[in-house]
């Protein structure tokens, strides 16, 4: 083994080239990790929303809540079914909900987009992960009030506490902010079911029923019971699957992310190869000397490969570090499944960062292998004669 310090010092000696290559690969890793973090944030928001025992009941043929409609009578029958979990007070964990969409302007000059407004009863809150009011208070029925997440308040006009959101010419006052573990619920505005359906002039309308099964067996039985019932004409989806399905909404972003990463990896790989070829060319005599001293070809190969990997890894780490200021930064995009805004935060977890480092490794390996092979194939005698 040729000592590692040989490579480190060589990188240091031609520091301008090293720095430029490191910044080049760093930017490339940065851009890719940023897009991975974006996708991961979006998927995390959707994934954390799904609870394994939760079911969503929709009208047959419907694929999402906004396009679903259920009769109120049917909804009450579902609530009475056996196998639904109960809370501490013996209330069934079954929430009859009304979901609608509004086109509203974003703050700043962000254009307009669609906003999910959900009407639900108090029990619905216990079906959301870690629901809690963090500022202001919860809505009181009959007063035309709404609550939302702080993230939404920052993104949309008229959604800050004290401001009024107009729904079909009825003003709803924002009275509080809630949190729900960063789940998709934080992309919504919540109101009282009756207030909302009245404003929408569809009193008594129900979009979906959300419920939690007692256990896995009860869940499967409920699915069978509801699906098989010819009167109901309903479809029931496990919440995890429902949000899994919506993740296809992030497909476009994901595809873009991976396309970016793939193209950039290639681009940076060639850059690394260039740098390493130059290194090999300018060090032919050294390579000849090392070979003469008795270092085997494998050592030379490893040494140059290692140098290339080291070079790219520095870029990779730099790129990963540069994404940290974006960690937790919230953003939003269209969820095409619900045709509305979904807000989420960039997430740079170990997985995402590992992908960035892996990219750097691949760049280093692929970019270094050909120059390293060239170094190995140098004829010792000719190499020793190089200037």
């Amino acid at each position: 083994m040729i000592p590692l310090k040989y490579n480190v010092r060589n990188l240091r000696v031609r520091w301008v080239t090293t720095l430029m290559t490191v910044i080049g690969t760093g930017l490339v890793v940065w851009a890719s990790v940023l897009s991975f973090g974006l996708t991961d944030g979006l998927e995390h928001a959707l994934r954390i929303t799904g609870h394994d025992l939760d079911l969503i009941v929709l009208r047959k043929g419907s694929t999402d809540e906004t396009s679903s409609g259920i009769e109120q009578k049917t909804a009450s029958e579902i609530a009475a079914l056996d196998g639904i979990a109960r809370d501490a007070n013996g209330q069934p964990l079954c929430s009859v909900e009304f979901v609608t969409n509004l086109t509203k302007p974003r703050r700043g000059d962000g254009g307009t987009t669609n906003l999910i407004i959900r009407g639900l009863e108090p029990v619905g809150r216990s079906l959301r992960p870690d629901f809690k009011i963090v500022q202001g208070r919860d809505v009181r029925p009959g007063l035309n009030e709404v609550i939302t997440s702080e993230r939404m308040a920052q993104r949309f006009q008229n959604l800050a506490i004290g401001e009024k959101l107009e729904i079909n010419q009825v003003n709803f006052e924002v009275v509080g902010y809630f949190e729900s573990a960063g789940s998709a619920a934080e992309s919504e505005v919540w109101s009282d079911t009756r207030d909302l359906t009245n404003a929408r002039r569809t009193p008594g309308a129900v979009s979906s029923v959300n419920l939690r099964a007692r256990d896995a067996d009860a869940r499967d039985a409920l699915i069978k019971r509801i699906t098989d019932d010819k009167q109901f004409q309903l479809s029931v989806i496990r919440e995890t699957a429902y949000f899994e399905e919506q993740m296809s909404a992030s497909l476009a972003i994901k595809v873009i992310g991976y396309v970016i990463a793939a193209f950039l990896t290639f681009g940076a790989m060639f850059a690394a190869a260039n740098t390493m070829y130059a290194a090999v060319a300018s060090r032919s005599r050294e390579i000849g000397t090392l070979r003469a001293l008795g270092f085997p070809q494998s050592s030379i190969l490893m040494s140059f490969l290692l140098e290339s990997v080291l070079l790219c890894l520095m870029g990779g780490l730099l790129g990963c570090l540069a994404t940290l200021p974006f960690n937790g930064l919230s953003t939003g995009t269209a969820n095409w499944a619900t045709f509305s805004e979904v807000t989420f935060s960039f997430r740079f977890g170990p997985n995402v960062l590992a992908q960035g480092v892996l990219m750097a490794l691949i760049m280093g390996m692929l970019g270094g292998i050909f120059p390293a092979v060239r170094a190995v194939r140098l004829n010792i005698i000719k190499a020793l004669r190089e200037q």
Partner: protein
Amino acid sequence: MGDAVRSGEKVVSVQNVFKEFRRDQNSIPVLRGINVELDACEYLALMGPSGSGKTTLLNLIAGLDRPTSGNVIVCGQNLGQTSEGDLARWRSRHIGFIFQLYNLIPVLTAYENVELPLTLTPLNRRERDEHVKAALQVVGLADRMDHYPRQLSGGQEQRVSIARAIATDPTLIVADEPTGDLDAKSASEILDLMQRLNTEFEKTIVMVTHDPAAAARARRTLHLEKGVLVNDVSSAR
């Protein structure tokens, strides 16, 4: 000291060696039927005009190259029949190199340069340290061991290179124009040092040189011309 080369056994045995280089379609003969034998502790100078094949012969003896035909047996190893990888291992054990342009690794200090061939041996860090310091002591540069090559003069660089050549305690030292790039004073110092290696440390040395003054220090001088041995003089020193 020294490898298990018993006296009486030849350190180098070059038997009827031919070497041709191929350039495009033509093959150019460089060595044409060379026979040389070297005993332990010999100090041989190879002389001859440019293109006479002296460096090629040196490369063959050093195991950097293989003959087109004939045998080169050095330290008991027939180099023509040894694979690349085995040759590399063999060189690290038996050969010390001294180059005209020193060929020190510019990013490593004097100490690290001398240590470099030792990393190919099974010696541990402490043992390597002893060897490096001993070798630098021999060449008189123990106080410069933390200097980088560019901080040394040409003569000093060549002394580091000699320290590197002897650090692994090889049987044979090959030198290609060791004084070719040095002023007269430094050259003389280097030649003194090499003579010491031969007499005091009983190293077998093969040296290619243009310089009659350098050749005069050797015990034996071979003259090559157009790939053929023309003269073999042993000085009775």
